[in-house]
Each structure stands twice: as structure tokens, then as C-alpha cells.
């Protein structure tokens, strides 16, 4: 058993937000999915106040050792989420972490208040990668913005708050420190790195409906390792490490540099059972190293 912000988890591997729609997966793989759920906790896809359709297609591009997505956070909005999804997710038998995003501190506050009402929700992850209207930067890209955000939302709930940091910043450790100072119970990283691909044909036209997208997968693992190490060295709160993990060895490295948990994102697209596989490989890895 692993303790994370007062939550008990079976092992150290959870899913990365937006990389495992459990409702669709259950339709495809049947109840086996619930019986052998691959992750120690379930992190929801990002929920926003109003419903979002997401970006126009195409939304995917494959790049060297990874992929770029411009999904654009499609979700049915917080009311539908609370009415229909939370109950389904609770059935999985693992703690539920709800990931939310607002485009202002006020929106975040409303989301946190609504979500915190629900007993099924074990923790709330704040996705602060939304562009700030005032600065043009991600809200989470500068420490001051993060401190201001937490000053507003921290008083609203006693549930653990996990701040999902953006990697598109000059000093991610300073952002993590700001989140911690503001009362965050944990931080998670890395989110995708801003990237672009062009439509074949040679006119410089972006391929993705969202123009730019986010890079994930093995290509970013070495960047994730550097950012997680620098954050874990700076803050005392637990760190959820992610970015390009595709094996137990990859997960072990994030733990070695100080992460408490590891999240698996894109690898689940290549292997729907990646969560359990990585957890098993991790257990074998530690058994070997202990021997």
C-alpha cells in the first residue's frame, strides 16, 4: 500500500489525465476492464464549467518517438460530469481524482466547490495549462499567477489539491514552490510540450485543427525526468511524475529522482493494459534491486 495525500493506493501507477476514457474502454473490453483495472487511481479527463466540443479535427500527429495532440479538452461540463460520470468512475474501486480547468481563478473556484461536494472524489487536480487571457501565457507558467490562484481555491476544500504544472516555463521548480506555498497538497508534471506539425503539401499550413498541439510520449521522457527531479528537489509535497513512461524501468527513474507516484499517458494508447504492465514491471524491478 502506498500513501498519497492521505489516500491509500494499491501501487504507484495511475493514469495521466485525458489518456484513458474508462467509459469507452469498458464498452470495448467489457467488465474485465473493471475487474482488472490497470491503475491504482483513476484521474478524470479535464472537466470545465461549460461543456466543450474540443478542437476541430485532425487532432493527432505522430512525431519522432511520440505524438502531438490538439484534442482541446472536450468534456460535457461539470454538471453532466457530476450527474453521470462520477458515479460510474466510483464503480472502478480505485480512488477518483477529478481534473479541472478554469480560465480564471473564479472559474477554478466554482469548479473546486462543485466537485468537492462529492464524496466519491478523493482529490482534485488543477490543470493550470490554460492560456491566461491577460498575459497570453499559461496560468501555470508564472509563480505569481499560481500563488494567486491557490489563494482563491485553497480555502474552498479540505480535499487534497494537486497542481498539474505546465512544462512550458523557464523554471518549473519555482512554479512548484509557489503552488506548495499556496497550500497545494501535491504537484503533478509534466503536461505536454507545445509543438506543431504541418499539413503535407508545403504551404506552412498547420495540420492540427488547434494549430499547435502538445507533444507526449518517449520523446519527452528526458525532459520530464529533468523537470520532475528539479521539482522534487525543491518541494516537500509529493510529486506525481509523468511524461513518456512506457515501462517499469522508466517509472523507476521518475521514482528515483523523487516522484511519489507515476502516471502513464500515451503508452496506454499503444497498450491498453500499460498501467498494470508498468506496475508489474516496477514491482519486479524493485524485487530485483532488493535481492
Amino acid at each position: 500500500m502506498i500513501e498519497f495525500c492521505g489516500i491509500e493506493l494499491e501501487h504507484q501507477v495511475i493514469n495521466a489525465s485525458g489518456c484513458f476514457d474508462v467509459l469507452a474502454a469498458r464498452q470495448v473490453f467489457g467488465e474485465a476492464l473493471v475487474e482488472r483495472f490497470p491503475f491504482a487511481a483513476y484521474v478524470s479527463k479535464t472537466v470545465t464549467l461549460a461543456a466543450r466540443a474540443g478542437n476541430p479535427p485532425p487532432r493527432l500527429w505522430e512525431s519522432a518517438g511520440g505524438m502531438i495532440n490538439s484534442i482541446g479538452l472536450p468534456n460535457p461540463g461539470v454538471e453532466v460530469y457530476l450527474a453521470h460520470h462520477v458515479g460510474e468512475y466510483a464503480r472502478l474501486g480505485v480512488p477518483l481524482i477529478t481534473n479541472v480547468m478554469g480560465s480564471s481563478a473564479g472559474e477554478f473556484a466554482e469548479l473546486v466547490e462543485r466537485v468537492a461536494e462529492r464524496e466519491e472524489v478523493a482529490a482534485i487536480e488543477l490543470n493550470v495549462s490554460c492560456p491566461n487571457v491577460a498575459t497570453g501565457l499559461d496560468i501555470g507558467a508564472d509563480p505569481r499567477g499560481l500563488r494567486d490562484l491557490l489563494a482563491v481555491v485553497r480555502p474552498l476544500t479540505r480535499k487534497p489539491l494537486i497542481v498539474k504544472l505546465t512544462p512550458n516555463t523557464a523554471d518549473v521548480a519555482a512554479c512548484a514552490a509557489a503552488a506548495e506555498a499556496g497550500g497545494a497538497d501535491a504537484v503533478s508534471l509534466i503536461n505536454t510540450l507545445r509543438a506543431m506539425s504541418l499539413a503535407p503539401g508545403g504551404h506552412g499550413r498547420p495540420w492540427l485543427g488547434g494549430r499547435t498541439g502538445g507533444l507526449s510520449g518517449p520523446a519527452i521522457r528526458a525532459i520530464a525526468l529533468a523537470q520532475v527531479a528539479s521539482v522534487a528537489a525543491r518541494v516537500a509535497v509529493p510529486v506525481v511524475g509523468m511524461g513518456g513512461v512506457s515501462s517499469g524501468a522508466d517509472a523507476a527513474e521518475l521514482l528515483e529522482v523523487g516522484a511519489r507516484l507515476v502516471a502513464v499517458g500515451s503508452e496506454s494508447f499503444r497498450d491498453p493494459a500499460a498501467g498494470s504492465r508498468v506496475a508489474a514491471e516496477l514491482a519486479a524491478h524493485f524485487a530485483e534491486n532488493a535481492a
Partner: protein
Amino acid sequence: MTTPFGRRVSAVLSRRLVGRYVVLGIGEEAAVAEPGQFYMLAAVAGWGGGVDERPYLPRAVSVLYARDGEVGFLLEDVGPGTHRLCGLGVGEDVYLVGPLGQGFTPPPPGIEAILVGGGVGIPPLAMFQDRCGGQALLGFRTSEHAEAASLFAAPELATDDGSAGHQGHVTDLLDDLLETRQDIVVFACGPPAMLQAVQSRVARHQVPAQLALEAPMACGYGACFGCVVDTVAGYKRVCVDGPVFDAAVLV
């Protein structure tokens, strides 16, 4: 629908060429796919390191046949993923997840299925015809490409250069049919332009149609929301809500 959860590794059982295409047969105990369904495929060795260091993601490939513990696919070498899959030797291992997606719904009794396909978008139709019959109308660029028509019974052909069958588009053949018949359902797969042409024709003639779409996919099982297509009910995921859609819902 229940399918094995997670990847399995199986040996390639057979591999043969149909003109410029490759038919790949893979051992799969419960080979129970419906026409229009697909698998996500990746080679176990040598997946990656191709053009621009790809492929990274598995590739969606329609089922061509599924019987006797073997599932078959028809592939055309168009990029790093299909290139690797086309080069698989007998005995090499692949990862596969599937069968996935919603296939074709057979027509009610008394209604004839008209199968309209082009290029490499024909496997779902060949499998459909094998199981439910129907008249195939197939379009190809040249007679060389048209060799895959051998997978069908009594197909009518069109080629861009007239080197086999009618010179022109396969939709010309469909036009002729639509002029005279209402007791049909159209089943189509192929390039986007062809599907759009089919969609506008069946709409004009008020004939129902089921279109099998393609979209860039990462996961194939609804996890990533990457493969959406616009419908009257908003964006839908091609991998779980499709790949077969009623032509009337597509916008």
C-alpha cells in the same frame, strides 16, 4: 462486445501479395470480427526508426476476413507503419488489439446491398460481400491497383485511366444504379473525396447509406478523443462510435 483486454502477441501465419497490396494473416483464436471492424496493429520488432523516426503509434487496419483462428488484413505500403507491416515475415510477432469499432449493419431482407469502394478501402466490403452478398462497384487508379478486385465476386470496375472497366470514377457506376433503383442500401469505404461524392448522391436520391470512415487514430478504443468526425450530434469518435456511420448523420 467483449474482446481481450490488452495486447497479445501472435505469430504471422500467412502473407501473400495481391498486386501491389499485401494480405497479412495473423493467428487469433477468437476470430469473430464483423465487416467494418478493425484492429490496431504494430510489429513487435522494428516498430520505429523509419521516416522521421516513426512509427510510434499502432495502426488501424480493417478486417478482411476472420475465420478458422486467423484474422486477415489487406495493406498498402503508404508510410512507415504500413511499410513495416507489409514487410512482416511469416513467424514474426505483432501486437494487436481488437476487433474494434462498429461494423456494417446488414440490410433488411429484400433490400440489395450495393458496395462502393476505392483503393485500399475495400477490405470491409470484401468481408461484407463474403458474408451477406451484394453488388460491388470498385474504383481504382489503374488496372495494376485494380488487382485487389480479385477479392470480390463479380465486381464492376472503374479506373481513372480506363485500363480496366469503366474509365472514370466509381461514382459514375453508382449514378447509373441510383437512376433506376430504390430498393438498395449503399455500403461504402474509400478515400474522403469518394465518400463525400457517395454521401451527396445518396442524399439526393434518398437512399440509405453506411459509410466506413478513416481518421488519424492513437488508441482505437476511445481513450484519446483524437479521431473525431463531425456529425449532427457533434464530434463523434470514429474508433468507438464508428468507423461505420449512417451517411445521414455526417455533416
